[in-house]
């Protein structure tokens, strides 16, 4: 390891140092605000170093990690998401009896795991990153331990993540037995012929790896944990799982697919088309039946993974741009939607029952309009960022002639519209009788200026990307060359 390797690693190293410093500070002086400031500082410095290295050459550090523009861009948006979650958490945790400070430490560790995942082009580093991420998520999901739901969610995630990791490891072992290395670039599928023969070991290995990844992304049929965990976890943690954790794994999947030319192997390609379509339909159809906003968003996030898979399947340059812009817009909208839930949540439990949102527009018009904006963006309506993402999926699939996927995305978009509109209709419907169900007299029990700031920023990004995406597209087209 040379000095230049170290300098490439600097953003991750800073994160680690930040974690250690915050832990040390805890022993001397426990202070919620100070912890927040320190974690924010860590993220900001780390991201600053990332932006510097964005303009540098891409760099392979050992055989495990690669710091190309692709990894750096994704790290930046993942850290951004984690930062936003930290800000939102502040108001959420303030005034609770729990120990608050450790939350941020785990958040930083989780972000570190995400960073390692997006920079890995080797199965071992992927596994390491995934474990770092998962272990901190076990804790974060059950952090509040306020009720049986929390514990259940934590255990569920623990068991399923463990299962998925064991699939992943077994797959990695198979791959190693076949290739003699676990580098992504070694598993080149374009050399494989449809007659399986000796390569069945590689195929089995890759399928197991994909099952492992599928659990993390909550692709149908590996999605069963999602609604319960989304509902049971504290709202900011849910926001993190929905965005950073899934986004990082998806970024890895994209890198993996592109560097192994997996689409040249026809049977797998068709399998993925089926997976994508099934995921969309399952997510959307099940979302219709829910009466809990967090569960609706959970199923909708399953559907969004289906859309992302559709974008991925377009292949080549289009896939990279479409997936990246879609993930970016998905991050913004999902963080925003969960941010609203976070701000509205009381100390006893989260504000997530649909009927509690009835007439929100009358009690808090600004919040209702902002929430509608985020929901419309999830539905992909113009003027919002979500539309640009969806438009790229359409164009990408049209360019590779995958009309069946295109039509599936279109059909699902208007199924999805139904439940997003249902939430919006609830926001704007009149309250029949004087509110007696409200369990908290204050309207926004978890509001903090930090959280408010994040929401304002997200709204700005939502509209800005929706109206003028050009600057972002320019950056994104700069990361394409890292992969192809």
């Amino acid at each position, binding site marked *: 390891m040379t000095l230049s390797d170290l300098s490439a690693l600097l953003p991750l190293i800073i994160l680690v140092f930040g974690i250690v410093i915050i832990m040390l500070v805890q022993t001397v002086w426990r202070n919620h605000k100070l912890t927040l400031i320190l974690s924010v500082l860590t993220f900001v410095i780390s991201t600053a170093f990332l932006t510097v290295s964005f303009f540098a050459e891409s760099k392979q550090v050992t055989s495990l990690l690669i710091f190309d523009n692709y990894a750096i861009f994704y790290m930046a948006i993942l850290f951004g998401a984690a930062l936003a979650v930290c800000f939102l958490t502040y108001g959420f945790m303030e005034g609770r009896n729990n120990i608050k400070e450790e939350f941020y430490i785990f958040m930083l560790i989780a972000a570190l795991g995400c960073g390692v995942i997006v920079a890995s082009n080797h199965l071992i580093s992927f596994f390491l990153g995934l474990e770092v991420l998962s272990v901190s998520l076990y804790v974060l999901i059950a952090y509040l331990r306020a009720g049986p739901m929390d514990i259940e969610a934590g255990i569920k995630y623990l068991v399923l993540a463990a299962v998925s990791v064991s699939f992943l490891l077994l797959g990695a072992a198979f791959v190693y037995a076949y290739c003699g290395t676990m580098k992504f670039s070694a598993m080149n599928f374009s050399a494989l012929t449809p007659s399986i023969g000796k390569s069945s070991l590689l195929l089995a290995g890759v399928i197991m790896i994909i099952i492992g990844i599928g659990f993390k992304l909550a692709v149908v049929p590996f999605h069963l944990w999602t609604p319960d965990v989304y509902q049971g976890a504290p709202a900011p943690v849910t926001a993190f799982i929905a965005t950073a954790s899934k986004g990082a794994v998806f970024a890895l999947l994209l890198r993996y697919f592109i560097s192994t030319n997996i689409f040249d192997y026809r049977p797998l390609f068709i399998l993925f088309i089926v997976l994508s379509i099934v995921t969309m339909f399952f997510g959307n159809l099940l979302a219709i039946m829910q009466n809990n906003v967090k569960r609706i968003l959970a199923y909708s996030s399953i559907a969004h993974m289906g859309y992302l898979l559709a974008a991925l399947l377009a292949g080549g340059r289009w896939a990279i741009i479409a997936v990246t812009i879609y993930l970016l817009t998905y991050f913004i909208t999902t963080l925003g939607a969960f941010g609203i839930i976070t701000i509205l949540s009381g100390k006893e439990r989260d504000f997530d029952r649909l009927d509690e949102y009835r007439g929100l527009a009358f009690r808090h018009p600004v919040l209702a309009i902002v929430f509608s904006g985020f929901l419309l963006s999830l539905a992909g309506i113009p003027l919002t960022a979500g539309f640009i993402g969806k438009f790229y999926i359409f*164009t990408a699939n049209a360019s590779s002639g995958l009309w069946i996927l*295109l039509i599936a995305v279109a059909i699902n978009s208007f199924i999805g519209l139904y439940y997003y509109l249902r939430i919006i209709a609830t926001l704007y419907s009149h309250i029949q009788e004087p509110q007696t169900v409200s369990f908290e007299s204050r309207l926004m029990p978890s509001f903090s200026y930090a959280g408010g700031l994040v929401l304002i920023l997200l709204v700005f990004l939502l509209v800005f990307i929706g109206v003028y995406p050009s600057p972002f597209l320019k950056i994104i087209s700069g990361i394409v060359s890292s992969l192809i």
Partner: protein
Amino acid sequence: MILLFLLIITLAGGIISWIVSFRSKVACRWLSTFALIADLVLLFLLTIKYASAYSSTEQWIELVKWNWIPQLGIAFELGADGLSLLFLWLTVLLGIFSIAASWDEIQERAGFFHFNIMLILAGIIGVFTALDLFLFYFFWELMLVPMYFLISIWGHENRVYAAIKFFIFTQAGGLFMLISIAGIYIIHGRTTGQYTFDYIQFLNAPLTSSFSIWLMLGFFLAFAVKLPMVPIHTWLPDAHTEAPTAGSVILAGLLLKTGAYGILRFVLPLFPKAASEIALIAMILGVIGILYGAILAFAQRDVKRLVAYTSISHLGFVLLAIFSGNMLALQGAIIIILAHGFSTGGLFIIVGALQERIHTRDMNQMGGLWAVAPRMGGVSLFLALASLGLPGLGNFVGEFLVLMGTYQVNPVLSAIASIGFILSSIYSLWFIYKVFHGPLVQNRQITDLGLREMTVMVFVMAAIVWLGIYPGPMLDSAKPALKGIQSKFISMIEKINDAQ
């Protein structure tokens, strides 16, 4: 630049009136009205410009183009020709009427209401002027969200259902159009090497491959839902009935017309071959719409629903005319579009005023209202007569031209469509009879139309009379654009006929 100002003034008017509404509701209403009057002035300038450049061969009176998303070849490109000019006039005039009509009706959250109205109008202006397919889709969807809010917040009893149904139907059509837009973009890019969404470039290289029928169907579906064509019309009666008066006026007068405009502007010129292949089916569906809408209109008890179904009937003529590819019929379609906008818009205002006064839309609880509200009765009779196609009024000119034109193409369909005249007389007179004649059902005292309402009605009636007596300027204005659309389309139809 006039087109850009048109958009900016409308949008800014909406935003400012929302802000002002926190202080004063009256100021907010006036502000929106003034913004639209400013739009009228701009349109007047545009018309003068058009009239002075009439003889030139340039198709577009106004053309502005800026780069927007260069990575995809998307430009902010607005343009207007004689055809869009007519639609723009209709848009702004009906916008003013609908604001005037809801002056008293909307008291709750008036600011947001006017913001939504202005946003819809801006979206419609954008649809009528956008010359970049991405931009067009952008505006196309922009009209939906505020209309959804309009119905779901200020609507009547069953508003949430109607609003969601409206949104999902139109969005479903829209998404298929989006697929087609992506498809045409990629195919055009592959064949010419130029990746662009520019309508003018597509126009110069129309797609004729066998694949183009699918792309055409995507566009057609989106526009047919809006128009509405018969099997996919079911959102319309609900949305029109549940919307507040202004919403109904804009829905019937403008949103439906965007469908007709889309077919004229995009489906026929971009896919002449594919469109000519479905022409017969579309014409048959148009005729079915004429009869079906008229029969169902007669069966309604709810006044608003009755008026809503008449729209399906009238727009059936438009569909029939467009796909006949005959010049007379196309000109007739334009007149119907304009006249229907005014007459149905007027009827919705009347019905809204009625509901405001007697709090019901059930015709069985009305009757004899002429005695207590003679002005309202007179205006309604005029509008009903216009709607049934009384010679001398706008709708007659339009429908007559359509029948004459389609007769040259397909006499059978034209003959069946003319039954629509009889049916429209039945439902229009039935409406007048049930509401205004007969004994007074309950001894109500209702106030007649006031000064504000009468002013609106005078303008509406004047427009209808003008269209009926002297439609020349409108026909001339649309003629060059229609000529361009028709010539390509008709040559394709002839080719098909020759092949058979």
